[in-house]
């Protein structure tokens, strides 16, 4: 049962990821991205991280990707991109080689560590049952890690303020007095020409 669920969600995740990088249209990419996120959420449920699974869908699919789609449709950059043109020659083969080598490195690490990851069974805060996952996570967040939570709250506030500042349409700068004089002169000249 677990194997079947894992294999299906792995297929969903990987096909979604490939869809993101091969789609011509950004909106299609965003949709494939949602597919991947759902697969990851299912994996979280499988690993008994039920709260994270719900948050994954609410935050990632419900806010982040929606924001992507929103920007894409609002700015009208949803035209399909021509993927045949390769702007920098040799970029794609090189990128694939780099991606494959990163995969190779991780794979090597995995193979060297035969029998899965090793490490001390520290268990600072043991993972409880899936049914009280939310409770345990909340207690850990608001006791041991409360400072980090406050920091991330600050980060989010800064990000929101930054976004507002960045995306506000700049109001026209008040023209300087010098420009104004030049403008007046220009207007006078124009008027004179008109009179002629």
């Amino acid at each position: 049962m677990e194997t079947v669920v894992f294999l299906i969600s792995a297929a969903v995740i990987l096909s979604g990821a490939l869809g993101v990088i091969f789609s011509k249209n950004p909106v299609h990419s965003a949709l494939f991205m949602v597919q991947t996120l759902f697969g990851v959420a299912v994996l979280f449920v499988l690993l008994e991280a039920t709260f994270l699974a719900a948050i994954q869908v609410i935050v990632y699919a419900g806010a982040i990707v929606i924001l992507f789609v929103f920007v894409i449709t609002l700015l009208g950059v949803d035209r399909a991109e021509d993927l045949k043109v390769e702007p920098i020659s040799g970029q794609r083969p090189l990128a694939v080689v780099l991606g494959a080598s990163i995969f190779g490195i991780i794979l090597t690490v995995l193979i060297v560590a035969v029998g899965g990851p090793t490490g001390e069974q520290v268990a600072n805060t043991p993972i409880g049952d899936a049914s009280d996952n939310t409770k345990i996570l909340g207690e850990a967040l608001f006791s041991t890690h409360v400072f980090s939570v406050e920091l991330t709250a600050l980060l989010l506030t800064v990000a929101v303020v930054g976004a507002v500042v960045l995306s506000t349409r700049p109001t026209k700068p008040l023209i300087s007095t010098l420009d104004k004089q030049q403008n007046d002169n220009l207007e006078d000249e124009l008027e004179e020409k008109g009179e002629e």
Partner: protein
Amino acid sequence: MMIIASDPLLSSDIGFSVVAIMLLKVVIAFALLMVSVMLVIWFERKIVADMHNRVGPSLAGPWGILQTLADGIKLFFKEDLLPERADRVVFRLAPYLSLVPAFLSFAIVPIGGDFTNGGDGTVSIFGHRTLLQVADPPVGILLFLALSSIAVYGVMLAGWSSGSKYPLLGSVRASAQMISYEAALGLSMATVFLFSGTLSTSGIVSGQATWNWNLVSTGFIPFIIFVIAGTAELNRPPFDLVEAEQELVGGFHTEYSSIRFALFFLAEFMNMITMSAIAVTLFLGGPNGPILIKQIAWVWPILWFFLKVMAFLFTFVWLRATLPRLRYDQLMDLGWKLLIPASLGWFLLIAALNIGEDRGWSTFLIVPIGLIVLSLAALLLNGAIKKAKDSSLHAADLSEISEGVDQ
């Protein structure tokens, strides 16, 4: 393999009868939703007609009760149009993206079961004890929030994929509105979690056994915010800017016809039923109520649940017939500057009261201090908004002057 649901049905060995009961529950929930959507559409048309002093649908069936069925059959046999500039795949996908979450979120609503006198709300079917809800995941209500955020995709993509400007404008409005009001919705729900101590819907309902409703214990404000934000989330009047006919032709589904349009319509009314059911579960005690005749004890919770949901549905219809549509900036102001700060402030006050109870602080001290702090915060917020408005007006004046000089 872990078990996601805490339904007692699944804690025993999973055999044929358990699977059969699960399937039965799914089928019943599906059929119940479909039939009630049909009736709710008729109900809405009839009530609005009464409020307008009209007759309303009256020809198909007794009192026109089969009108929806007739409309559905008509839509089914109409030609299915596909706009030339549409994005074919997404255009076909979008109705399902809004229909499937509407179906799924009803799965977590307990529609019956006796929670009085420490009852766990289970009923006995074929020798198995089970909850009267399709699923009871530990994250419960969060699943509802997750699904309602997925429902935004249906509206958004329907508008975008039509390849036409009015649907696009409608969908951009819709997604902005739904994302904004989801925050207020979630924050007003958070107050309920403080009292229930759990996210699971059956846990929330059993915490409100018989008369201990969250409506009273959370102090009405979260409930009011939930209903307003819920109405906005449903895109119902007075928040139906998404499909404002006078401005946007028909909103995001302008280009849809035939069965695909029917699917959107279905999803909209299904969401209305689900939102009412969730509100009843969270604030009005779900199926809790007095059991009047002991012999048919299982009937009463279902009856109470049904009556409470009906009251909500009537309110939604009533709002539609009564209130004029908001302007877009009023909508955003209401969401961001009133509902979100109010629900957050109330949440903090309730949290302070809860902590105070644990620590043995005096309630008579916490409430005034809390209220003073909150009103100070409200004053600050108001001042900031006013300042921002003034300076933007000032900037607008300046730019007008400079534009005047340019000419």
